[in-house]
């Protein structure tokens, strides 16, 4: 009897080990594959020519993705400008002002917003935002500002939920102590709560950035996908993600390797962002 149980226990353990190793294998597979396919071009053409190159014409031997790196960042910062203040305000409202019933209404609504597929955002952006920008601001409408607007809305749920978590984890004693010293609610919020939730809030911004920089479908529908660095918010632009999505189906040989190199750059940027953000959150928890 005991032997059977012990045997079963061992079996289970090894099955779980197998599962864990398989998961690891899958996870690292994608990592390693992208690196393996993306690095050779760096070696062949030179890291500088790719990262700082200004011209992307892979069928003619040009693999410069600098304009796209800049564009990705521009669009991300634009999204933050729109999403961060709005998202933080929502989070503050939810954590400090909203009653239980309001919370039960608002939180699911935010989660639902997070669930709307990016192609739907892209579609609505093309139908409604692009013509508006074209008529009232100029240009073709497919532009930095249109993309930032839509991306800003898309990253709201991320910013709201993580900032909310950071805000509610500020100890009650902080709020009580501040009130005891005669501070009003907003004074407490701005001078006590937000500063102590600072690293969590910042982490939410950074994760929002990561989301924005990785967004693909909505971006290729709205951004115009031109290869030049935009000189105004009304100019079209192409992001790193857009570059991969647009040309993936058609690329062969070195062209394809170029897309992998773009992928490597993208991956590195996002990993750095993620790491910084998680570091920030962990510091918050450690406190």
């Amino acid at each position: 009897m005991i032997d059977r149980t012990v045997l079963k226990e061992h079996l289970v353990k090894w099955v779980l080990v197998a599962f864990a190793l398989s998961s690891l294998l899958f996870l690292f597979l994608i990592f390693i594959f992208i690196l393996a396919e993306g690095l050779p071009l760096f070696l062949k053409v030179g890291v500088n020519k790719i990262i700082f190159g200004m011209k992307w014409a892979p069928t003619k031997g040009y693999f410069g993705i600098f304009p796209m790196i800049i564009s990705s960042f521009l669009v991300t910062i634009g999204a933050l400008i729109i999403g961060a203040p709005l998202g933080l305000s929502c989070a503050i409202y939810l954590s400090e002002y909203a009653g239980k019933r309001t919370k039960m209404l608002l939180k699911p609504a935010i989660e639902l917003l997070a669930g709307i597929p990016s192609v739907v955002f892209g579609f609505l952006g093309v139908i409604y935002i692009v013509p508006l920008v074209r008529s009232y601001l100029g240009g073709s409408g497919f532009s930095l500002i249109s993309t930032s607007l839509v991306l800003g809305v898309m990253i709201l749920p991320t910013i709201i939920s993580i900032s909310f978590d950071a805000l509610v984890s500020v100890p009650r004693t902080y709020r009580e102590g501040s009130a005891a010293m005669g501070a009003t609610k907003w004074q407490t919020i701005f001078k006590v709560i937000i500063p102590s939730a600072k690293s969590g809030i910042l982490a939410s911004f950074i994760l929002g950035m990561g989301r924005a920089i990785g967004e693909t479908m909505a971006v290729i529908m709205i951004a115009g996908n031109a290869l030049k660095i935009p000189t105004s918010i009304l100019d079209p632009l192409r992001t790193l993600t857009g570059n991969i999505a647009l040309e993936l189906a058609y690329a062969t040989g070195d062209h394809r390797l170029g897309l992998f190199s773009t992928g490597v750059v993208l991956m590195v940027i996002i990993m750095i962002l993620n790491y910084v953000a998680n570091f920030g959150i962990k510091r918050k928890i450690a406190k």
Partner: protein
Amino acid sequence: MRINPRYINRLVRMGLNVQAYFTVGILIIIVAIIFFKGFPHTNFAFIFSFPEDMGREGGIFPSIVGTIQLALLSILLATPLGLGTAIFLTEYTKESLFTKFIRFGVESLAGIPSILYGLFGFIFFVIKLKMGWSLLAGVLTMTIMILPTIIRTSEEAIRAVPRQLRIVSYSLSASKWETIKKVVIPAAIPGILTGIMLSIGRAVGETAAIIFTMGSSLRLPLSLMDSGRTMAVHFYILAREGISMEKAYGTAVVLVLSILLINILAYYIMNKAIARYS
């Protein structure tokens, strides 16, 4: 001149209030536009008939089926793998360099954008492993995509189970696996299910990774090697090519409705599971 802090208080409160409802308002507008423009075109026929003339006419049945197949098969593959890994990490190992390594891998991969999965899946599964554009390639890619989420949420849920429960179970001479199976996992089910529902939602709405692995055939996928569309892919193609605005909105309705239902189902299951097991 000092402004009375009370007024500022009210102003701040109003300002925040407005912004919160503005955000919800955006959601309502999005859903309203989709539903008002799309509902007239979604009927029984739309859901159950096949697309004709490249999608200009007819329905979206194949893409609905494709979506279900993709989501279900991916979950079926990813859940045992992910849950097993989570159990292994929490119950069978001590905190060590190895576990930190795994966790680092999971965290890093959680942020990888879907287009990179599409890039990987296309070159690795579709071309190098010669699967062609197929349900299989799509499922494998999607499985890898949702694996980090399932591992992470399961791990958190299992960790959150109080130690006392385990101790009591051992003291009743239950074996390790029995404890896990009958005590720990049931207690962690709400969290685990959340991860699963989140992943299903992602699978349903995902486009970039799917269009390059599962393809865009209008056919009904009858085997793993068949290509097909999911609703999200079909919607994207209809919208991008300007094939039919009406059908696009109609597809969007079914798509958004499905995601809504999945979210609601998630809440329901979670509450039920919490009631049952705690």
